[in-house]
């Protein structure tokens, strides 16, 4: 009985997704007039009389359709077809094309339709979609048979002078201006004489900002201080400064033990000190680590890097030094 109910309740043929969907744009230049090859495989074994192609920002078929900026398909012509053929364009607007033919049963294999005279969208930051639906009717009305979307995107030309280019601004010295317009031009710090009783400290500053939507990352690169083969170990995890032990570490916040550094300066909250380098009185250094980043556009922000150097009583004499290279990059 249950089985009989199940058999009768489940529809005999539900709509399915087109398979092997694809879009080839002969030119991806924004605003260019070009041809598109739209490919897909019909799935439901039913006669097809029309195919609806709706050009929207969003590929999801049941969402409101927002026409991609700059796109125009109102002058499109069907200049080629393979697989399921016999179609002509029966209806079109600036973002919709309806292909029609006398309803006939589909075969197997992929079908491709070449639509010429399409004006590309202009927004390079956004992809667009063609929502596809097949119908038995001639005018893409009534119940759909198969559905699915294909995705496309225009690519930026090499030079577009009208657009604001993304830029990454970075400066670094012992002291820097918030806007990077000046530094004190000191690029090294003499921290003094090592002693097991006290901690040597220093600080440097860097300012960074970007209008790139992906944000930025600043990494610190270079070994810990060394004199010949003798090395003062870097702190691999955030650790308090302990005089009398061999320690080298940095952080990017205001500290009291020892009293060194400042919190990041700048109202904008996107740019932050990275995890492990953002805890007061805890220091760490690992070459290649990200020390500050922003995952989005970030106005200029100034970071003060604090350095601590401790040594044991039996440390080998010598001049312990290192060069730390701060590398600012965009994110992907």
């Amino acid at each position, binding site marked *: 009985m249950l089985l009989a109910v199940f058999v009768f309740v489940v529809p005999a043929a539900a709509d399915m997704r087109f398979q092997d969907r*694809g*879009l*080839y744009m002969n030119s991806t230049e924004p605003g260019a007039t070009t041809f598109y090859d739209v490919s897909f495989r019909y799935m439901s074994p039913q006669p097809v009389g029309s195919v609806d192609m709706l050009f929207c920002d*969003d*590929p*999801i078929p049941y969402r409101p359709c927002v026409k991609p900026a700059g796109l125009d398909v109102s002058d499109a012509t069907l200049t080629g077809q393979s697989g399921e053929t016999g179609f002509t364009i029966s209806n079109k607007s600036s973002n919709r094309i309806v292909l029609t033919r006398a309803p006939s049963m589909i075969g197997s294999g992929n079908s491709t339709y070449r639509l010429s005279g399409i004006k590309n969208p202009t927004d390079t930051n*956004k*992809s667009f979609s063609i929502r596809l639906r097949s119908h038995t009717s001639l005018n893409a009305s009534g119940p759909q048979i198969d559905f*699915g*979307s*294909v995705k*496309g995107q225009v690519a*930026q030309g*090499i*030079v577009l002078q009208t657009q604001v*280019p*993304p*830029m*990454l*601004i*970075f*400066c*670094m*010295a012992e002291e*820097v201006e918030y806007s990077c*317009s*000046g*530094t004190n031009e000191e*690029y*090294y*710090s*003499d*921290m003094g004489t090592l002693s097991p009783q006290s901690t040597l400290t*220093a600080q*440097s500053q860097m300012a960074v*900002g970007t209008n790139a939507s*992906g944000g930025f990352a600043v*990494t610190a690169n270079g070994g810990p201080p060394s004199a010949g083969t003798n090395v003062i170990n870097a702190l691999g995890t955030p650790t308090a400064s302990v005089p009398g032990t061999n320690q080298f570490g940095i952080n990017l916040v205001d500290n009291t033990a020892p009293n060194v550094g400042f919190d990041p300066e700048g109202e*904008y*909250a*996107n740019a932050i000190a990275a*995890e492990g380098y953002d805890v007061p009185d805890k220091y760490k250094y690992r070459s*290649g680590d990200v020390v500050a*980043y922003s*995952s989005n*556009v970030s106005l200029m922000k100034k970071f003060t890097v604090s350095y601590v150097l401790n040594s044991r009583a039996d440390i080998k004499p010598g*001049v*312990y*030094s*290192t*060069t*730390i*290279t*701060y*590398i*600012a*990059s*965009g*994110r*992907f």
Partner: protein
Amino acid sequence: MNRFKSIVLAVAAALVATAYAVPAPTTSAASASLSIVPNKKYTIEPGRTINDKLTIRNLDAEQPLELTLRVVDFTFTDDGGTPKLLLDENEPQTTWSLKPYLNVPQTVSVPPRESQTVDMSVAMPQGIGGGSYYSAIVYSSGAPDGGNVGLSASGVTLAFVQVPGDVKEDLKLEKFGAYQQASGDNAGGYKYFNTNAPKSLAFTLKNSGNVVEAPVGSISLKHMFGREQIINDVNPNGSLALIGQSRTFVSCIKLKEQEVDFEGQQTQTKTCDDSGLWPGYYSAKLNLFYGQNGNRTQEINSDASFWYLPIWFILVLLALLSVVAFFIWRLVNKVQGKFGGPKVKKKSSRRR
């Protein structure tokens, strides 16, 4: 004549003395303030060359900017968008390296407060396979002299080239759900039970293809009582999953867009605003699309769920339950008192 000789010698001696007295120029007299383009993206067919420009700006008002340029490979650091630069000279070339095809000058000098535009070119050879190729251009300022800690500043431009053709595209969904961003001592990550209102949803995709992918799509989020929210653009920044990377794409439930002034230019920034979620159980549906031009458009669909139960809500719920329990207990006692309660017969033991 002797007098002339002595004058010449005196002048020569003075010149030599001056040369030694003037300190040798050091890198500390150069700028370390630069502005560069953070990334470049091209689509280049096999056998074609693209010529482009790199603009470098020296922000320092007094000192020239002396830079050396080199091209290095990069990969990913983690599931985010931070590049891991392969800076070691002996680092083996990656399979996606752009190094053999990318030409940039070795040095650039930029006067104070000026910009310098230098030529660069990317030449993709005939017969190169379709896919993504990428490397990084590193601009290095000089290393300092002296001190215990020397500082050196570098900037990086990430360069991506897409070669059209048949490519292998393979994204697999690894995770999808509510996502808490790292803040302070709280590590970020996917959370099923949330006492703080999640501001974002996220999905992690493993890219096993030979092309970088920037998926698009949407998420619908539904509360247990039916209230629905749609995240229309799950990748508004066009973030990429690099080759081999498991990339986490974070989508704000409520996106806050703001126009800001950056160096005199209006720029739009997007951040996650308070989501305004009600306490309760949520289900989410993910619809993703990806595919390069001329290749199949592929789709990923997935469902996820999570709880948002703030502490105040749990306390209120417990208080309400306590009140209900108390009234039930009172009611039971009243009923028992009215009807005399269950009567228990005393067992009497007989002594034989």
